[in-house]
Each structure stands twice: as structure tokens, then as C-alpha cells.
């Protein structure tokens, strides 16, 4: 019994301990907080030491099932009626796509944009002219208003500052008289400036009705989300197409530049938007934070002059704006009279990370661009914290912000055309809701203008996101052989080619594109292979049909071949393994180069063996299937027709396209000597190559393409990729791709 007692004792002591802990002990540390308990009990039941504490035990749930019951009660209101009432209910400042836009206009013909014909005597500014011609040159354009989903005025609405010489009078009457105006429904109005001194309102001075606004310097209060589009303020010298590249040529590590933060601009002294710039001198330290203002602007600046003006003006003249822009890590972008300023695009192009000080500015294309990845969004109220904020940003982050400025600049801002196309694509994404881009597509290379959701909304189907998603492209390819000559013998090069390609372990399927005038040969005339061979008859037998996005391509990779190409299975295997590492580029064999001919002031084309190249011929090249889609939909009909009519240059055009997307050169892989000879030698196509006209055509093509792209997208490379042990002095038996070395 002794032992039993001891157990009991032990047990009861333990129980007491547990009980004590439950009731009181645990509270000890918590209840000791809040030293000033007695003061400030002015408000009933409250005292500052009190803190919120969770309640254990059963509480009633908040019951979302009740929702169902209330839904039942609501049975009588028809959702259709509800939808119809929206359009009457939410207009003007409360316009949204659901209430002010007619989706049915876009259903029949897709997203087509109509531009009103220019009226006689109506003057357009250069910028507006650029906007209109960008639309007219785009694939969205339709000359038929009956087909259109979106309408663009040919009345210049860009500058609505009454004091401006560009201001168009009587807009209201002019617009009301347009027969297609329809209360502004499905119209988009472009505007850069609105309001004037002293209050700079965002009103355009006429009734925009149900029209959408694509406006610069728009404030969050006036911005109608998912209806308006905020565009950047651009100058009248902004190029229509092409556009300058970003200034970042190479990354530096550590990423700090001479200055940490700079600004140089006017100070308004009084009136709207002057406070922030007037306060900048507090932060200026004339060492690494250089914020300069001048009071000199307008005629009567002397009248408003304050005590700092003279000192500021002298300091202002000491520094060169360009020098500061290129040598600073961050660039301050404070608001001016209006919310947006030119400083924004200037900083973006200069790879100087913008530090925004413009409270309430709806940043350009905010609907799709994640500005936190390329800019520092500051708060005007916290100006004094700005230096410590930017100094606290980690090097890695600066490096990434800086690169993102360059990507965004080149993807959406560097020409009027890009700004306009981005605006249209944003609206198209709203209209075709379930085929729209994800945020990733907009905010990653190569950007939304090159990532067309009509091809696929699945990231995996594009060549750009494999690394980001941690996945690999499809492990096989589809060969497409372009045939233009009739089948006469079994020993024809195309037969050998077909067999060699089909033997590749990575080959999923061979497609023969029959672009020959003779009828299709019987099925049994094609050699027997282990992979399926599909013969497709080219519809109009034009050369562009080799780049059509055929549904029958099951793989990510396409091996594009001319009928007279000579390739061994080993070569194909090797090229494909290389492509897997560079899925967004063209990987192929024979290469060509371009150069600037300064005598003739135009681009030249050369097929000479040189130390570098910028194109790889698509007669023997592997690239991603998506480029077929881009070629067919992104490029304008004018270029494709030109190529078809000449039956030439399709490969050059493809190289232009891919390089403008990837900003990188194609990749040449090593080839057998024998192949080179045939390419330049005896085959059917060789006659074409030897033809001087053919060569001249290609020269012309280059220049036509460069002018459409607005720039020369091709990039030179000096690198060729060879198998690891290629021509090394080791036994040939140790080499995996030994056939490539054999003659």
C-alpha cells in the first residue's frame, strides 16, 4: 500500500500543477505588459493596456450557408435583366467594360479596329498622325466600320490644353456630327495633355460619352479600372516605329553608379504640384544625391522667386542632365504640373531606375505591368525617407530593376507603334477574356506583344518560359520537308533526306509539304519509316506555307528542311540536343551574314564564309513551333506577299522575326563538309543560288524587312557549337557524334 500512496501523491501533485498552469500560470508573462494602466479611461470600457485575446471554446460560425438561403430568396430577379440594367446604371465616371462597351461588335470578326477617314481641312499633329498610321499598319486594322469592334477618331484629341497651339476647337460639335459615334460606345480617345493653368483638370473639354480614354498622366481617382488605359507621356519626336534601344550595354557588378539618385528639372514655386519639387533641396547633398531645380521658366518667374532660387539656379547650371542620367543608379521622377512627366521614359531608357514621386498617378499600362519590378514607387509625403529607402535596396534587386527597365522600354515604350499596339492588345485581352495573357506573359521577356494568347494561353507552349517554370521542351521534333520538284526516282536527295531524318532517335514525325505543281505521288512511293510520314498539299503552293502553324505538329521543335538538303542522322541528333538548350532561337547549319554598306547607305547580304554570321538558313534548321504562328499572324501581309511572289527571302524574314523576339543571334552547329559542297554546288536549288538576281532580291528583302521592323534586329555571332570532343585528338570511338567528322 505504501507504493500505492506514493503513486497517488505523485499523481495529485502533477494534476495540481497542470490545473494551475491551465488557469493562471500561463497568463503571467502576458498580463505583466502594459505598464500605464490607470490613465486614459475616458472612453468607456477601453484602456490602453488592454489587448485583444483569442476566445477558446465554441463560438458560432459566421455561416456562409446562409448565402444559399438568401440566394433562394432572390430567385425572382432575372440575371439577364440585371445585366441589362447595368448599361443604364453605370455610365460616365463609372463606366466599365460591362456597362459601356458592346462586346457583340467584336464577336463576328474578332478584334478589329476602324479609323475614321480624315476630314478635309482637319489638321493632325505629328504624334496623332503616328498613332493613326500605327493602327492602320497593324493586323487589327479594318477599313470597314461594319466589321469593327473598336473605333478611333481622326480628330486630334492629344492636346486638350486650351493654351496650346495644337488645341482643336469645336471638338464637341465635330464629334457629335459623326454618324458612327453612337454616344462614344466602343470608341477610344487618345490624349496626352488635358486641362491648363492653374488647375490642370483631367477633363478633355468635350463630352466623351461612353468612350474609353487612353490618357497620359491620368490619376487613380479619374481612372476607370479595366476601362481606361494609362499611356505614357511621349514627346513629339518619339519615333513612329522601331525605336531606340535601351542604353544598358552590359551589366556591372556591383551595380552602383557614380550617383545614387539624381533629378534635374523645373521648380514651379507656386500652384498645383509645386510642393514636392520645392522640397527637393532638403534631400540634395551634392555628392551622390543630386537633385537640382531651376526657377527659370515662363516669363515672369522673377515675380514668384523665393530665397533659394538664385542658389538653386547656380547649382542647376553646374551639372549636365545627360551625364547625370547615364551615371546614376536611381532617377527621381517627381510630378510636374501634371502627374506624368517626360522624366519617366527618359529614366527608363537610360536604365536609371525611376523613383516615382507622383502620388495618385496611375502608372502607364498599370493594368498589365508590375511596376514594382522596374521602379521604386515612392510617396510624396515621405520625401525625406527617399534616400534611406533607395540605399536600403539590395544590390541584386538593383540589378534586376535595372534590367527590367530595359526590357519594358523596348517591349512597350520605345516607339509610338509599341505604345499604340500595347493599348490595343490590352483592350483585346479584355474583350477575349478567356484567351488573354497572364501577368507573366506581360512582365517577362519577350513581353506581351510577342506572346499571342490566340496561339495558346498555356505558358508551356511558348519557347520563352521553360527555365522559369523549371521544365523542358518536348523531347522530340517534327521534320517538315518542303518539296517543289516532282518525284522521279527513289534515289532523289529528298528520299535520302527523309530516311536519314526519320532515323533520328528524336524524330516524332515527318511532314512532307507538297508545294509542287505535279499531283501528289502515291503513298507507297515514299520510303517506309519507323515514324509516321504525313504528306500535306500546300494550298496555294506559296513558299510561306512552309511556316504555317499546322495543327498536325505535335512537338515543340520543328526541323525545317529543303528537299535538296543533305543531312546525316547524327547531324540531326546533335542539332536537336543543342536546340534543347536554346529553345527560343534558330539552330541550324548553313549561315549567312548581314552588314551595313556605307557606300550605298543600305544593308548588305553576304553568303561568303566569314568569321561571323547573323542568320541561319531555314532550309536546315530547328526552331520552336511558335515561330510558325508568329510568322503567319504577327508579320504584315505586305511582307509575306512579297516573299511569296519572289519565292525567296522567307528564311531571312524568319531570322528577322526570331531575332527581334529573342534579341539574340541564331546558332550555327557544325556540319559535314559534304553538305557544304552540295549547298553551294550542283543540286536543283543551286541554280537558284548561283543566279545573281536571286542574290540581289535577297539584298532588297533585307532592306524592306529592316524598314518594316524599324530597326535591324539581326545580331552577329562568332560562335559555332560543335560536339564536345569534335576534332580533338582522341580516339574516334570515344566520340558520340563521330559521323560529323567523317567525310
Amino acid at each position, binding site marked *: 500500500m505504501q507504493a500505492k500512496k506514493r503513486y497517488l501523491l505523485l499523481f495529485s501533485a502533477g494534476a495540481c500543477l497542470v490545473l494551475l498552469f491551465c*488557469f493562471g500560470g500561463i497568463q503571467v508573462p502576458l498580463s505583466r505588459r502594459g505598464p500605464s494602466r490607470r490613465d486614459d479611461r475616458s472612453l468607456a470600457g477601453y484602456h490602453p493596456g488592454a489587448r485583444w485575446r483569442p476566445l477558446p471554446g465554441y463560438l458560432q460560425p459566421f455561416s456562409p450557408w446562409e448565402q444559399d438561403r438568401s440566394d433562394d430568396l432572390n430567385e425572382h430577379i432575372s440575371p439577364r435583366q440585371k445585366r441589362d440594367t447595368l448599361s443604364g446604371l453605370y455610365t460616365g465616371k463609372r463606366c466599365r467594360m460591362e456597362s459601356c462597351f458592346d462586346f457583340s461588335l467584336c464577336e463576328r470578326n474578332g478584334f478589329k479596329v476602324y479609323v475614321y477617314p480624315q476630314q478635309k481641312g482637319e489638321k493632325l499633329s505629328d504624334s496623332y498622325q503616328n498613332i493613326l498610321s500605327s493602327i492602320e499598319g497593324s493586323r487589327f486594322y479594318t477599313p470597314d466600320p461594319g466589321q469593327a469592334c473598336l473605333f478611333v477618331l481622326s480628330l486630334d484629341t492629344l492636346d486638350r490644353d486650351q493654351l496650346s497651339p495644337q488645341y482643336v476647337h469645336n471638338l464637341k460639335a465635330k464629334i457629335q456630327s459623326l454618324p458612327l459615334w453612337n454616344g462614344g460606345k466602343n470608341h477610344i480617345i487618345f490624349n496626352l495633355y488635358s486641362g491648363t493653368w492653374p488647375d490642370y483638370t483631367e477633363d478633355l473639354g468635350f463630352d466623351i460619352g461612353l468612350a474609353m480614354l487612353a490618357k497620359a498622366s491620368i490619376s487613380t481617382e479619374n481612372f476607370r479600372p479595366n476601362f481606361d488605359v494609362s499611356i505614357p507621356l511621349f514627346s513629339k519626336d518619339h519615333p513612329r516605329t522601331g525605336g531606340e534601344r535601351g542604353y544598358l550595354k552590359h551589366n556591372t557588378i556591383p551595380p552602383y553608379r557614380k550617383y545614387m539618385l539624381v533629378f534635374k528639372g523645373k521648380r514651379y514655386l507656386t500652384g498645383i504640384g509645386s510642393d514636392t519639387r520645392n522640397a527637393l533641396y532638403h534631400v540634395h547633398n551634392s555628392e551622390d544625391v543630386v537633385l537640382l531645380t531651376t526657377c527659370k521658366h515662363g516669363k515672369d518667374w522673377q515675380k514668384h522667386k523665393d530665397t533659394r532660387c538664385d542658389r538653386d539656379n547656380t547649382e542647376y547650371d553646374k551639372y549636365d542632365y545627360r551625364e547625370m542620367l547615364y551615371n546614376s543608379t536611381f532617377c527621381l521622377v517627381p510630378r510636374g504640373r501634371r502627374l506624368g512627366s517626360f522624366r519617366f521614359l527618359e529614366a527608363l531608357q537610360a536604365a536609371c531606375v525611376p523613383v516615382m514621386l507622383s502620388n495618385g498617378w496611375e502608372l502607364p499600362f498599370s493594368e498589365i505591368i508590375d511596376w514594382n519590378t522596374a521602379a521604386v514607387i515612392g510617396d510624396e509625403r515621405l520625401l525625406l525617407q527617399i534616400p534611406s529607402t533607395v540605399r536600403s535596396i539590395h544590390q541584386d534587386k538593383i540589378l534586376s530593376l535595372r534590367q527590367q527597365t530595359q526590357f519594358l522600354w523596348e517591349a512597350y515604350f520605345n516607339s509610338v507603334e509599341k505604345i499604340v499596339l500595347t493599348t490595343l492588345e490590352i483592350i483585346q485581352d479584355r474583350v477575349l477574356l478567356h484567351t488573354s495573357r497572364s501577368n507573366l506573359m506581360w512582365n517577362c521577356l519577350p513581353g506581351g506583344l510577342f506572346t499571342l494568347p490566340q496561339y495558346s494561353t498555356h505558358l508551356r507552349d511558348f519557347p520563352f518560359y521553360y527555365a522559369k517554370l523549371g521544365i523542358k521542351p518536348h523531347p522530340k521534333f517534327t521534320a517538315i520537308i518542303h518539296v517543289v520538284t516532282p518525284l522521279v526516282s527513289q534515289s532523289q536527295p529528298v528520299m535520302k533526306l527523309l530516311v536519314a531524318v526519320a532515323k533520328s532517335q528524336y524524330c516524332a514525325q515527318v511532314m512532307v509539304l507538297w508545294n509542287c505543281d505535279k499531283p501528289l505521288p502515291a503513298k507507297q512511293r515514299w520510303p517506309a519509316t519507323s515514324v509516321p510520314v504525313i504528306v500535306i498539299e500546300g494550298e496555294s503552293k506559296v513558299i510561306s506555307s512552309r511556316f504555317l502553324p499546322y495543327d498536325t505538329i505535335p512537338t515543340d521543335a520543328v526541323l525545317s528542311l529543303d528537299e535538296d538538303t543533305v543531312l546525316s542522322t547524327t547531324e540531326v541528333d546533335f542539332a536537336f540536343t543543342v536546340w534543347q538548350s536554346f529553345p527560343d532561337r534558330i539552330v541550324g547549319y548553313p549561315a549567312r551574314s548581314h552588314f551595313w554598306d556605307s557606300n550605298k547607305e543600305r544593308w548588305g547580304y553576304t553568303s561568303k564564309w566569314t568569321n561571323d554570321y547573323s542568320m541561319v538558313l531555314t532550309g536546315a534548321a530547328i526552331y520552336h513551333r511558335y515561330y510558325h504562328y508568329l510568322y503567319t499572324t504577327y508579320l504584315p501581309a505586305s511582307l509575306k506577299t512579297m516573299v511569296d511572289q519572289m519565292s525567296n527571302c522567307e528564311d531571312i524574314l524568319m531570322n528577322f522575326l526570331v531575332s527581334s523576339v529573342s534579341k539574340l543571334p541564331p546558332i550555327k552547329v557544325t556540319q559535314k563538309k559534304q553538305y557544304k559542297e552540295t549547298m553551294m554546288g550542283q543540286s536543283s536549288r543551286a541554280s537558284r543560288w548561283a543566279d545573281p538576281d536571286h542574290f540581289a532580291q535577297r539584298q532588297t528583302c533585307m532592306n524592306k524587312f529592316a524598314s518594316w521592323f524599324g530597326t535591324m534586329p539581326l545580331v552577329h555571332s562568332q560562335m559555332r557549337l*560543335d560536339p564536345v570532343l569534335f576534332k580533338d585528338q582522341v580516339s574516334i570511338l570515344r566520340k558520340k557524334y563521330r559521323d560529323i567528322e567523317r567525310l
Partner: protein
Amino acid sequence: MYTSGKYSSRGPALIPRMKTKHRIYYITLFSVVLLGLIATGMFQFWPHSIESTADWTLDKRSVHDAPLIRLPVSSPIPERGDLSCRMHTCFDVYRCGYNPKNRIKVYIYPLQRFVDELGVPISSTGLSREYNDLLSAISDSDFYTDDITRACLFIPSIDVLNQNSLRIRETAQALAMLPRWDKGMNHLLFNMLPGGPPDYNTALDVPRDRALLAGGGFSTWTYRQGYDVSIPVYSPLSADVEQPEKQPGPRRYFILSSQTAIHREYRAELERLKEENGEALLLLDKCSNLSQGAASARKRCYKGQVYDYPQILQESSFCVVLRGARLGQAALSDVLQAGCVPVILADSYILPFSEVLDWKRASVVIPEEKLSEMYTILKSIPHRQVEEMQRQAHWFWEAYFSSMKAIGLTTLQIINDRIYPYAARTYEQWNNPPVVKWSSVNSPLFLPLIPPRAPGFTAVVLTYDRVESLFRVITEISKVPSLAKLLVVWNNQNKSPPEGEKKFKCPECTAIDGLSLDQTHMVERSECINKFASVFGTMPLKVVEHRADPVLYKDDFPEKLKSFPNIGSL
């Protein structure tokens, strides 16, 4: 008695009998400990219950003991929410201050019971379990502060999750009585079921001045972009029902509609779709033979056949989430949990956490008008994409929908990101499920730049004591035209580096070539690789079979015309 007897008979065998003095000693010891503990306990309760009632009422652990506040009829009512409010106009950023952690401080008001002059409470439910969970989670998080003077954001402990259980005017008065209310500045309210019959407003109807609203069911007309936060309607089923996680892949049904209160117009539309497409669609409704309540919430029926809800959701690739009287639906949460891709038909609805979540990768949004085209639209989505959306959907649930804690902390993080935008979480951090986070490669140098040649390169040579071979390297490399700088890292503490160019020959050095052929050296390096791979959690190295050579490398071409003629000649 039987058991104790058994114990006592065993006792002596297990524990040797103690002597009496030992026994006394033990008993005294236990008594002292016991008395001490009781005394401590008494001390705990005693002084505090006298000193401050407010603090301790809560410890009695009952809502009814929270201090009772009587609202005078005339007490002020806040203004209705101001639609033009934005962070820079209605939020006092000075309260958040600059701090190195870039983290806002959140204060939660202590619990109070508000009643009107007649003693009727302002809310029929009082504090709900969910709101209690939400506040507990916040008070346990890094955001929490109990110092009201240091707080940047204030959360009332007045539960407004469900508007239907509130008396609107009185709730508003109660809010205005909060000591730091100050026109609602920096106050955050959580509401999941806004509006009431007949027109069901899409935002909480309680007048609330400038307070931020984390609301479930915002429409584009009530949501103040960049100010409010759109949150999900929490589904209590997710906590109640244990479900094994289902891997993405093909499922038995293609489309499933499981909501019970679908308007008859839409139900007719769904029936029509079902007629056209048969088995691929499963159209469930509530079971007519079951009474309302929690039990009925767990069953669904189709033509007399009973299905378990939410388990049935796992059997379908797509699940319809149609608007009801309200835009936000708790079904969305159930659907995501099941890894079923939500097909959302709720025009103008602001999707939960849409400020940070990329819903296009996890859902299909279809205009209500196009309900009849739903089947065709969904059929056009490739299988692989559906699987990825399933995975993404489940991940969203797990990370942001699964509990009141997840919902609360996500809301705070979103507000935090607005106040410290330069330290905001990235798109990848918000949207990539852990699998992708591990396997994806985000190069720090992602911009395709081809650097100019002009700056050249810097050679960094690491050396230990093989001076001879070092000099050979230096001699060779300094011939390279684009060499800008040469840096030698002398990695030998026992010897000082040779000085100047005179000592170009090093007599005592013996060539220790073939070091890398050494067997132990190879073993060591293999061990390194394994160690690194285990630390990285994956093998980041990739095997390629190609090598970069100059374009004309080893080509039958005049050497003097090649840019890099010497490469490859050993």
C-alpha cells in the same frame, strides 16, 4: 480495485521499499511543492482581479464577460465609405514609419460588447468563430503589436464578416466609438458576406468613413483599386473535411456544377448543356429530402442519387462557380481545395487577392452571357494546361484560402506590400507553387545583352605555390589583346608571393602536374558534388553535349583569314 490490487502486489517488485524517514521526507517535499503551487495560483488570480477588471474579464473566457458598451442613440455615425479613397489620400502613412524590416505594425482592439440603449446587442452572433480565428492568427504573427501608439493599422474586434447578422446603424456607431477611429483612418474591416436583400450591395453597407475594407464579393464598382483588398468567402468545410490531396490529371467528369442556389435561368442553361454533352457534365442540386443546415451542406443530389460534398469536387476537371445574389461564393474555396479548375461566371467580380494572384493560370473566367458556350470554351483548353491549372488552383487554396489565418495574413501582406512597395513580394513568390519554386531558374542576368568588347575582361588567377606554372599562365594570358586586368590570388599563408618580374623563374618549384588525375582528388571532388547537391536540394548542374568554337574552327580555310586561328592547336 482489481487493478490497484494488481499494482500494489507488483509495487514492491518494481520499487524497493523505502524506509520510514525517506517516506516522511518525500511526503513533506510533495506537500511543500503543492502548497507553493496553490499559493502561486492564488496570487495569480487575486491582485489582478482587484486591480483591473478590463484586463481580466477576458481570461474568464467568455464573450459575455467582455466589457459592455452602451451606445447612445445620438452617438455619431461615420460617413459612408468614400469611393475615391486611395492610399495616398485616405491612409496616414506616417503612422507606419520607416523601419528596416519593412513591416507594418497591426493593433487589434480588445473585445467589447456593444449594445444599444435598450440593451440589445448590435450583432446577432457576436464574435464568430472565424473572426476569432482571424484575430488570433494576426495576434500571433509578426505584424502584431499590443502598443496602440506604434500601430500603423488598426483592426476592430467588432465582427462584420456577415452583414446579415449586423444592425447597420449601431455597428457604425460602435466603430466610431473606437478610441483611435479618427475617421476610420488606417482601420481595416473584414467582411465576407456584404449586402442584403433585395439588391445585395457588393460592399459592406455599414458606414465606415475612410476605413479599408477587406471584402469578399466586391464588384468593379465598389472595389477601390489599390485601397481595398478583395478576399475570398471562407468555407468552413475546408477545416471540417479531411480530403486526401488529389494529383492533377484526367478526372471522371469534365464539368461539375455543385452549387445549390443557382438562379433558374442559369440552371435551365446548365440543363441544356447537360442534354447536349451528357455524361461529361454532372449537374448537382440540394437534396430535397434533407433539412437545411450543416448536414445538408455536405450532400448533393442528382435525380435521387446522393453525392458527398465536397468530395465529389475531386472527381471533376472543371467546376462551375456561378454568382448568386452575391458575387463572392464560398464554393470557390471548396473547388480550389479539390484541385478542380474553377469556371467563374460572375460579371464584374473582383477575384480574391487579384492584386497579387494571377488567376489566369488557375481559373477560367467566362462572361455570364456566354454560359451556353462554356463547354466549347473549356474543350479548347489542352489537357496539360488543365493539369497545370489544377495544380495552381490547389496551391492557391493551400496558401491563401485554406484558413482564416491564411486569409488574414495574406490581406495584411498585400497592404504591407503597398506601404513598402520596394520590398514587396514578387510575382514568383506569390504565384509559384513550391514545386516550381524549387525547379525554376531565374537568372540574375536575365536581359539578353551582348556586351561590347571594349572593356575587355579581367583575369583572376588562383595560385597556391606552383609559381612556375603561374608565370607561364601570366605570360600567355597577357598576350591577349582584350585583357584589361590580371588579378593573382595568392592562396598560400606560409609563403609570401614572389615580387616583381625578376623572379620569373622559381628554382625550388617542381611541376606537380597531373594533380587532377590523382585518385583521392577525384573522390574528394565527387564528395563535394554530392554535398552541394544535397544542400541545394536538387542537382542544378545540367549536362550538354556541345562546345562553343569559332565559326571557322578547324575548317578547311586559310588560317590567316580566321579570327581565332590558334584555337585547338595544342
